[in-house]
């Protein structure tokens, strides 16, 4: 599926540009976007380094285990094939907690750490495991309790009540997460391997 989408974006882009006589837009567009990708990765380095460092302290202090014990029963249903005491459980939970609070900059490094643990369970294969797919879907559908960025944007745009969309956002995000998890469960069996 990733192959098809990626190819479609490229082919549709180049063909449209050719037909509308703006081929040079392809060249400038790809140069700008590739540069953005590198800027993004460089921005990542600092924040990743910091949060994985802090996470190691939390791990050694037993804080991650504590979180895993409290929320353990939930993850057993969510993450198939992950043994209860595995480091992946704690890592997944710290990511989910950061996401819910809207701590984007902390959520991504913690999520990557969790994916790394799930990857070890998957023995480093190039094909995603069931648990990796479920965890990914949990992140793309993002249960956000505090949509901080949007509230800030509304405030700066002069809204009379910037936070009035918190309730509607929570409803919509719960629907999307539920639908994504259901789809994940239904599609899982049909495409094994």
């Amino acid at each position: 599926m990733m192959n098809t989408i990626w190819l479609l974006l490229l082919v549709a882009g180049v063909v449209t540009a050719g037909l509308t006589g703006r081929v040079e837009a392809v060249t400038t567009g790809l140069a700008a976007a590739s540069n953005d990708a590198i800027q993004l990765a460089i921005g990542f380095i600092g924040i990743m380094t910091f949060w994985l460092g802090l996470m190691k302290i939390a791990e050694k202090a037993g804080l991650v285990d504590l979180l895993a014990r409290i929320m353990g029963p939930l993850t057993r249903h969510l993450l198939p094939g992950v043994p209860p005491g595995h480091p992946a459980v704690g890592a997944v939970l710290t990511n989910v907690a950061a996401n819910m609070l809207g701590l984007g900059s902390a959520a991504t490094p913690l999520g990557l750490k969790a994916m790394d643990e799930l990857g070890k369970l998957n023995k480093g294969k190039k094909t995603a495991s069931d648990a990796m797919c479920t965890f990914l879907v949990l992140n793309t559908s993002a249960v956000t309790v505090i949509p901080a960025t949007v509230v800030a944007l509304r405030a700066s745009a002069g809204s009379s009540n910037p936070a009035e969309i918190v309730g509607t956002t929570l409803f919509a995000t719960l629907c999307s997460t539920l639908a994504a998890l259901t789809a994940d469960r239904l599609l899982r069996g049909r495409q094994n391997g």
Partner: protein
Amino acid sequence: MVEALTLISSWAIPFVVLVVPLVGYLRGVKVYEAFIEGAEDGFKTAVNLIPYLVAILAAIGIFRASGAWEFMLGLISPVTDRVGVPAPVLPLALMRPLSGAGSLGIVADLMTAYGPDSFIGRLASTMQGSTDTTFYILTVYFGSVGVTRPRHAVAAGLIGDLSGIIAAVFITSLVFGS
């Protein structure tokens, strides 16, 4: 309400930064050494992401710069009009899974054009907050562990995005009225 939210979101990270090392220290963890040990992994992970990020962002960049983006909007809008998605938010609905910065830019544009307290402004806000950037998360999360075959995760993620958009249109109309 807004003050409470701003307070929570501005204090959450400093709180974690204060509490984690403090608890660690009290529990006998060598906090500085532990930090360095964890931090070494962070650098490696970030560098591993580069090929994946370039692949997806360049493809999306070409698609948008070529005019294929506007062409696709023209094709889809008759269908989405029927199911009650207002035309101005259609670009946002389609951009949301592709680019976080791109979709936030569209939300900002819509707020300037229609006002943050208009139906369009509220709907756009709800849509922006209800899902995350599916392709970006997919690229970064799977890229960091070298997974190139995401199986059903792409389809499930997009089904989630679509449900989020439909739910946003439904709940915004119900709560604020169109």
